[in-house]
């Protein structure tokens, strides 16, 4: 199953439940060894996509191809994919070793081969001392590692991960994230990873697929999604917390003047914008600067301490709410009058219609 394949193609993969289209026309070519993150808010269709890939949900339309072999008509047990489930789905009556060996036994490998590869996978996730334990005797992080070892021991052509870190506490989540990255680097297994956490997706994936209401919004590298969101929904999800509903005043090539609600700002247009169009101007809190003397006046309302920085919520005289970051050393306080500016290259202006 693992013999070199070049690419996995999703061709217009769609899935409806009743009349509702949970996933519409997902088209994507995954190269061998790539780490793909399917990202989006809950209900966006990312888990549906994963289950369609695994064969746990039949497709309504479209096809899945491994080079020129059609996979979407095969049952899950014949696709040769490994899957890590959100709740791990470890077999509670089998030891760690039994869980990891299960897939190898299903392939009727020799006893010695099963033992060798099981040991190797258990060593890979550093669970040697726990190999004889039942899943119920392990911590959440250890269970997670068993689930990963069980999926990768078969050296599957594709590893599917369904929000594998969502049940872990914050510290463990960071550790396991690094662990997954390390495993991917050492084994080079093609991976599709589902998450609603943009930070997780950015830090792990080679390419991201952002879904919303079952439709693909943008496919690109972490840098592309982070710096150049395709529309304001993507920007919203990628941490552009300030979404200002304004109107385009002037558009001159690489710059667009936007105004409304007493604001007058200059930004970078994304997409086709004509003067007078309603737009959404998006900027990250960290790209809003507090300036001395010049800029838009606002009043500080809420200050959250984040260590080196503080997150500030401010409001302009017209009632526009703004989120920004400031150095903790400046000690802004609720009630303070500040003035802020935005770098035109960092203010993205999207058509409001999409």
């Amino acid at each position, binding site marked *: 199953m693992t013999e070199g394949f070049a690419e996995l193609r999703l061709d217009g993969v769609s899935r409806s439940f009743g009349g509702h289209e949970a996933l519409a026309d997902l088209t994507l070519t995954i190269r061998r060894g790539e780490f793909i993150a399917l990202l989006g808010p809950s209900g966006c269709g990312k888990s549906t996509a994963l289950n369609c890939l*695994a064969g746990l949900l039949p497709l309504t339309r479209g096809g899945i191809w491994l080079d020129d072999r059609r996979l979407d008509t095969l*049952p*899950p*047990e014949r696709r040769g994919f490994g899957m890590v*489930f959100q709740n*791990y*789905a470890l*077999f*509670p009556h089998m030891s760690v070793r039994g869980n990891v060996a299960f*897939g190898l036994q299903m392939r009727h490998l020799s006893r010695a081969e099963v033992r060798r590869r099981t040991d190797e996978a258990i060593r890979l996730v550093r669970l040697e001392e726990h190999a004889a334990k039942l899943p119920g005797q392990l911590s959440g992080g250890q269970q997670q590692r068993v689930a990963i070892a069980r999926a990768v021991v078969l050296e599957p052509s594709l590893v599917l991960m369904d929000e594998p870190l969502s049940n872990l506490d914050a510290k463990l989540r960071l550790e396991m994230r690094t662990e997954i990255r390390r495993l991917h680097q050492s084994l080079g297994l093609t991976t599709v990873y589902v998450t609603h956490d943009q930070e997780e997706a950015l830090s792990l994936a080679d390419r991201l697929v952002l879904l919303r209401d079952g439709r693909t919004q943008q496919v690109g590298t972490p840098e592309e999604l982070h710096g150049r969101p395709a529309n304001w929904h993507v920007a919203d999800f990628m941490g552009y917390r300030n979404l200002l509903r304004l109107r385009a005043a002037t558009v001159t090539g690489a710059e667009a003047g936007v105004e409304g609600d007493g604001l007058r700002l200059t930004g970078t247009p994304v997409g086709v914008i004509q003067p007078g169009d309603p737009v959404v101007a998006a900027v990250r809190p960290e790209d809003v600067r507090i300036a001395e003397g010049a800029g838009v006046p606002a009043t500080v309302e809420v200050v959250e301490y984040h260590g080196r920085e503080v997150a500030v919520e401010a409001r302009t005289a017209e009632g526009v709410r703004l989120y920004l970051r400031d150095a903790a050393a400046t000690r802004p306080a609720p009630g303070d009058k500040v003035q802020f500016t935005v770098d035109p290259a960092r203010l993205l202006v999207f058509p409001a219609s999409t």
Partner: protein
Amino acid sequence: MRHSTALRHRLAERGIDRQLLLLVPAAAFVVLLFVYPFLYGVGLSFQPERGGPFSAYREFFADAYQRDTILTTLRLALPAALLNVVASVPIAYRMRGRFRGKRLLTTLLVVPVTLGTVLTAQGLLNFLGPTGWFNRILPGDPVRLTNNYWGVFFSLVITGFPFAFLLVLSYLSGIDPTLERAAATLGAGSWQRFRRITLPLLAPGLATTFCLTFVLAFSVFPSAVLVGDPAGSTRVISIAAYEEAYVRYDYPMAATIAVIMGAVELLVIAAVLGWRSLLYTGSTAGGKG
């Protein structure tokens, strides 16, 4: 004063506090209606009309006509209980998911338990009897399926199956369905998924189900009389006890037979639970969920 507060606290931690008093009525009820009559019966069995305290037991086991009722009853109850459990598994397995019409199908499967043995027996006599529909459709000589072993056996299956089915279905619903999906992604076909994942997790529940249906079948009385051959091949142990109590008015002997009945049931249950204790009996969930 401090000392008594600490004591009360320590007791409360072990679940001993004033709320425990709420259990008194229920406990009194159990003592009055179960424990006392039970102990009275056991006591009675050691006070036979003639001979020493064990002579009723000796008499029972010395008389082949009496002794054989144990085997006769086991021959009915063990296969019937086993069939009920074994037949419940595939049906409940098919029905574990959600689908249209599930409630209707479940109701149909469970209805027999509400009918009562007598109605079932009447149905069996009309349907399977020598002049019943079954034999009229069947060519050749009529097959004898009532007033013998098979009549009682069918009756035990009809009334015991719904019970076993409901229990097995609830045990199956407790098994995390993602476990089978995980097994599928690891290359296990449907039979392997059942045999390696579902069955081992279900087995303790099957043992419990077997015990309960066995106990029901072991105390069979009405159908053994109505559709069986109560003087011969289906002279079950409860009939022997009935005869002692209401035909011969030998209460100590009847009590003895009741005690022996209980002992045989306990032996079978102990054997099944002994096997069960060898199985995995922990959580049937796949993780922290």
